[in-house]
């Protein structure tokens, strides 16, 4: 196995493979930066080009491209408040808030470094998990996936903010998100729900226009109201030093970064949870890491931990998602489903052969992820000064371009004008939520987890009856759900007690 591990590194460094990987990285770099281009779409567009490549070259190209998309997507999220990718929306909450405070360099440094650590954790999880992943994945059936979705939904209590009223609004936002996730054809009986006789809505609301509207429009409105650049009149200071501060932040909160990377890897491994989930659960966990109510109130307004958590998770999930794809041919996300197509195009069959006969190829994928992310992060650090200067460009120049990218980004998710209506609706809703102090993160969490919860609930009930509630992993997850709900409340109460006891 060690031989294959080392051999995997050497094959990636063969000059032709390495050049092809660099080409993939170059494409992925821009795909991540531009909100109009999705990682999965580009992966599909690039499939025809791998026919003439060897398997190592093909996966160096595709994985080199795909594994850096989230890294550069974070850059767009931080600088413009528009999610570069659907999987980088959570970075906006604190990353863009930091950019508005004149700390774009620090936010980018933190996002890039945590992305690199996340990618390394994901890649090494892939390498280590190869022999042991089978029992883990097989122990997760529909009941466990349902409970995992419930654990995710329980994070609403962490993402809501402090105080009873904030919690009430957080739950309202989460419930609205759950309701929006139910739009479309009911998977049980095929009945249309909330489709208003529109064919476009049969498949449900797409995540991309929902996220772009919810996050980009309020930021554009805020930029227009302020009438300045993103960073306003604030001095930017030395961007390089700011970025270095962001790198140091990653190591100051090293265990948080590692924990969020592991969350991302775990969610990536679980087929069917999707790429959008990991970042939000990691963000919820980062909020939970706040020591007291005062610290917690800084989240959403520019706390670097809110950048580190999702930054690490959205990269580490890629390594995790590759595990079931390679080991069982079960793709964990739409991008992995496309990658599965690449296996068949190359005449490879995912499964035991990939862990035995083609082990060198499997390890070359691990190395591709490591090298691609390292190259991208180093390159991004070189471009950081130029990138962060964009926050000094007057809003009146940026707004038409951000709107252009937001509209086109929404449209390309289904190539349907209905996407633009969804974008506008959620844009207005996002603005109203910000005006009314309703948190947006719980809405997104409810939206991404609603369908998963419903589908797996029915499968569990049909397959096992009520006995699924007694499965050991389900019981553990029920306990975890209770902990996730109760922990922030206890912490809030403890903080309030401490504040009351403090001598005035």
């Amino acid at each position: 196995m060690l031989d294959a591990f080392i051999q995997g590194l050497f094959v990636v460094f063969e000059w032709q493979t390495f050049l092809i990987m660099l080409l993939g990285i170059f494409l992925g770099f821009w795909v991540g930066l531009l909100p109009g281009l999705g990682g999965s779409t580009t992966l599909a567009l690039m499939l025809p080009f791998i026919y003439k490549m060897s398997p190592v070259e093909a996966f160096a190209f595709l994985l080199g491209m795909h594994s850096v998309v989230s890294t550069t997507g974070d850059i767009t999220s931080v600088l413009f408040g528009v999610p570069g990718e659907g999987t980088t929306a959570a970075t906006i909450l604190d990353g863009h808030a930091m950019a508005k405070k004149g700390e774009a360099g620090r936010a980018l440094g933190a996002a890039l470094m945590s992305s690199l650590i996340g990618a390394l954790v994901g890649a090494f999880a892939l390498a280590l998990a190869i022999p042991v992943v089978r029992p883990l994945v097989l122990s997760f059936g529909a009941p466990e996936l349902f409970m995992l979705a419930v654990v995710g939904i329980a994070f609403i209590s962490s993402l809501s903010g402090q105080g009873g009223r904030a919690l009430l609004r957080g739950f309202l936002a989460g419930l609205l998100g759950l309701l929006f996730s139910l739009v479309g054809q009911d998977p049980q009986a095929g009945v249309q729900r909330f489709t208003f006789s529109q064919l476009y809505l049969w498949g449900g609301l797409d995540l991309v226009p929902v996220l772009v509207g919810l996050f980009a429009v309020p930021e554009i409105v805020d930029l227009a109201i302020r009438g300045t650049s993103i960073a306003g009149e604030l001095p930017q200071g030395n961007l390089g030093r700011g970025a270095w501060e962001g790198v140091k932040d990653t190591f100051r909160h090293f265990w948080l970064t590692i924990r969020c990377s592991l969350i991302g890897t775990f969610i990536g491994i679980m087929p069917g949870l999707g790429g959008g989930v990991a970042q939000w659960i990691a963000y919820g966990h980062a909020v939970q890491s706040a020591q007291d109510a005062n610290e917690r109130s800084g989240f959403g307004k520019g706390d670097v931990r809110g950048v580190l958590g999702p930054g690490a998770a959205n990269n580490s999930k890629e390594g995790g998602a590759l595990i079931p794809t390679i080991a069982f041919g079960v793709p964990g996300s739409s991008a992995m489903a496309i990658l599965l197509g690449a296996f068949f195009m190359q005449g490879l069959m995912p499964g035991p052969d990939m862990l035995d006969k083609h082990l060198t190829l499997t390890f070359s994928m691990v190395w591709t992820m490591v090298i691609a992310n390292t190259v991208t992060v180093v390159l991004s650090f070189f471009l950081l000064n130029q990138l962060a200067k964009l926050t000094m460009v007057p809003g009146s120049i940026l707004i038409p371009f951000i709107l252009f990218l937001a509209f086109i980004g929404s449209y390309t998710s289904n190539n349907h004008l209905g996407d633009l209506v969804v974008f506008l609706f959620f844009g207005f809703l996002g603005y109203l939520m910000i005006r009314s102090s309703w948190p947006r993160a719980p809405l997104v969490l409810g939206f991404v987890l609603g369908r998963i919860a419903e589908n797996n609930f029915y499968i569990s009930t049909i397959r096992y009856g009520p006995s699924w509630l007694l499965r050991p992993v389900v019981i553990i997850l029920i306990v975890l759900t209770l902990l996730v709900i109760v922990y922030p409340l206890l912490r809030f109460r403890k903080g309030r007690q401490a504040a009351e006891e403090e001598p005035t």
Partner: protein
Amino acid sequence: MKGFLNSRSFLALAGGMIAGYALYASLHWPFKTALFPRVVGIPLLALSLFELVLCMAGVEPEREGHAVDFELAKDIAPGLARRRTVAIFSWIFGFFVLILLCGFPLAVPLFVFLYLRLAGKHGWVLTLLLTLLSWFTMEGLFNRLLHLPFPDGWIFSLWG
């Protein structure tokens, strides 16, 4: 009454109405289809009404707590902020109408030109340069390179 006429009350009311509609619609569905909308709709309706009552009662802001989210700029005069908000939403909606009427390839440079010239009040050189850049990105990247299927604008469809 003043407490009722704000975005918070409007949002709470909207949440209640959406929940009410969801529950009403679910009356016509089989049990399995209706279960989740009801499980979500009932607490959404109850909590929305509760929030609405709190808004109408005018609970003091300091008891409301902080949302984990950003806040809109507060250092701008309310009248000016309102005017700018209406203006930017008009531009956003106007861009959408332009896309419907002219199609993406024409609407994008047209919008960038109009926004830079009318809202940004930038000079001709910068406006034309950035318009050209937007056209190049739209035409070169999205249209020619990626072959994204952009529908024709309604104006061109009418002309046949």
